[in-house]
């Protein structure tokens, strides 16, 4: 049980599992933070044909390094197209050309509704979060939405404090504990990561999850996946630290 844990971190497992979900996908709208590293790992592994779309106005990015921000100069040089944000959000996203929108989240409920705005009351919040950015329009206009986030009783909640983005189009949620898919509007656990028990998982969320067939645990990261994360994508451990 503790053997795989010595080989990789929970963050690495989460990023690898999220990247694998992108196999065979064509066009992905890349959100800031964890989605950024997961999508760039996917393009180097299971989805070499994946076209990366950045809200900053880039289609077909070929980042030579993992950008810290999603508006980095490396996503521009060598890209297929650079457009105004009006055209990126209007013609590409709202126009229906995005297969997968990849989002992070601070809070999520069992239906996949996401809060990235405030913890507490909106007028005088306990914690002021970044807000929507492009998330609410990605959640409404991408054909399907993937979510990657660390889960805990404070992030996997019965009631989110603010509905920033709707869960209607979410198809998969990948966390540091396991993988969920949407089943009739509710998240269903379909895989536990190595070393994570169902009890561990239940202790890390505020509701009792619907559980599918979890007899097979998530295949651990391969050496190549770990090498890409550690040597190429995140040598400074910004995402995995």
């Amino acid at each position, binding site marked *: 049980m503790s053997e795989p844990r010595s080989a990789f971190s929970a963050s690495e497992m989460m990023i690898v599992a999220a990247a694998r979900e992108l196999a065979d996908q064509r066009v992905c709208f890349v959100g*800031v*933070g964890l989605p*950024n590293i997961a999508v760039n790992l996917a393009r180097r592994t299971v989805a070499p044909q994946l076209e990366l779309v950045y*809200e*900053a*106005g*880039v289609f077909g990015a070929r980042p030579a390094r993992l*950008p*810290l*921000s*999603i*508006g*980095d*100069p490396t996503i*521009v*040089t*060598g890209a297929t197209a*650079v*457009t*105004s*944000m*009006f055209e990126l*959000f*209007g013609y590409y*996203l*709202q126009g229906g050309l995005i297969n997968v929108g990849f989002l992070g989240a601070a809070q999520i409920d069992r239906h996949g509704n996401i809060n990235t*705005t405030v913890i507490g009351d*909106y*007028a*005088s*919040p*306990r*914690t*002021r*979060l*970044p*807000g*929507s*950015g*492009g*998330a*609410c*329009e990605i959640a*409404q*206009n991408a054909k399907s939405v993937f979510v990657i986030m660390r889960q805990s009783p404070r992030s996997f909640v019965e009631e989110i404090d*603010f*509905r*920033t*983005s*709707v869960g*209607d189009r979410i198809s998969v949620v990948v966390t540091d504990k396991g993988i969920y898919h949407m089943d009739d509007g509710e998240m269903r656990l379909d895989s536990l990561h190595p070393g994570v028990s169902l009890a561990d998982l239940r202790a890390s969320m505020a509701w009792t999850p619907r559980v599918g067939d979890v007899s097979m645990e998530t295949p651990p990261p391969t050496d190549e996946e770990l090498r890409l994360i550690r040597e190429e994508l995140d040598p400074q451990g*910004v995402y995995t630290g």
Partner: protein
Amino acid sequence: MSSSKVTSMRDAVAELVRDGDTVAIEGFTHLICFAAGHEIIRQRRRDLTLCRLTPDLVYDQMIAAGVARKLVFSWLGNPGVGSLHAVRRVTEGDRATLELEEYSHFGMVARYTAGAMKLPFFPLRSYAETDLPTANPLIRPIQSPYGGDQVYAVPPLAPDVTIIHAQRADAAGNTQVWGLLGCQKEAAFAADRVIVVVEELVDEAVIRADPNRTILPGLVVDAVVVEPWGAHPSYAQGHYDRDNAFYLDWDAISRDAGSLDAWLDEWVHGVASRSEYLAKLGDDRLRALRPTPAPSGSVDYGEYR
């Protein structure tokens, strides 16, 4: 159009940015004009309504310095790093002294676009089933005159002053940008006054050789300020890289109000101009941010007589 609009940052801010103004220093990650933000702090402007999709470090610094009364935005963070601590200090709990007006990215872009087009509203497919229209009553539902499903509208945003940074402009203010375009064009056309800050002042002939590269005609530009490296720690495509180390360092600098004030004293109030700031940064740091060349290549417009 041939009369020169070239001036200094000090004079441009003194003449065109006034207390109480609605100000947009736009640029999405790319071409964020920190040089203008710092000059506004030095000239101690007050009661500004600051507009930006991503307030970024430039507004965290300006808000910490006390220039702002209100913030209009769509994403409030230090990209890939974390929070904007100075903004959080004046927006959380009882300390909430800064007024917020919040949209999504497309909502903000649509607001500038409506401002540029003199439209009374702009329709978009966002906000359905979210709490954003409740949090911000200016986000309103609108029915199509052709039936079908309801969409939402946002109101126009027409800043008193828009400040943008660009790779190059001529003395008349004809401005060209490549790389990320963000919504600078829309924010500038929407504004009453426009300041363009450039890495390089070029001859009119350079602009006219490639008119498709022009994002703003001098017609809408009031001042041209030549300020190389004026976007640091943001970047200028082809000129210098984003100084990610500074974005990472800012997290620690800004967590404590005292250390942030000390930083402002040293790096903003403590320098008279951008050139002093750059001298303080040092050549080694700047040199390390220079990219190797990646030329676009040239196209032929043809001479037609």
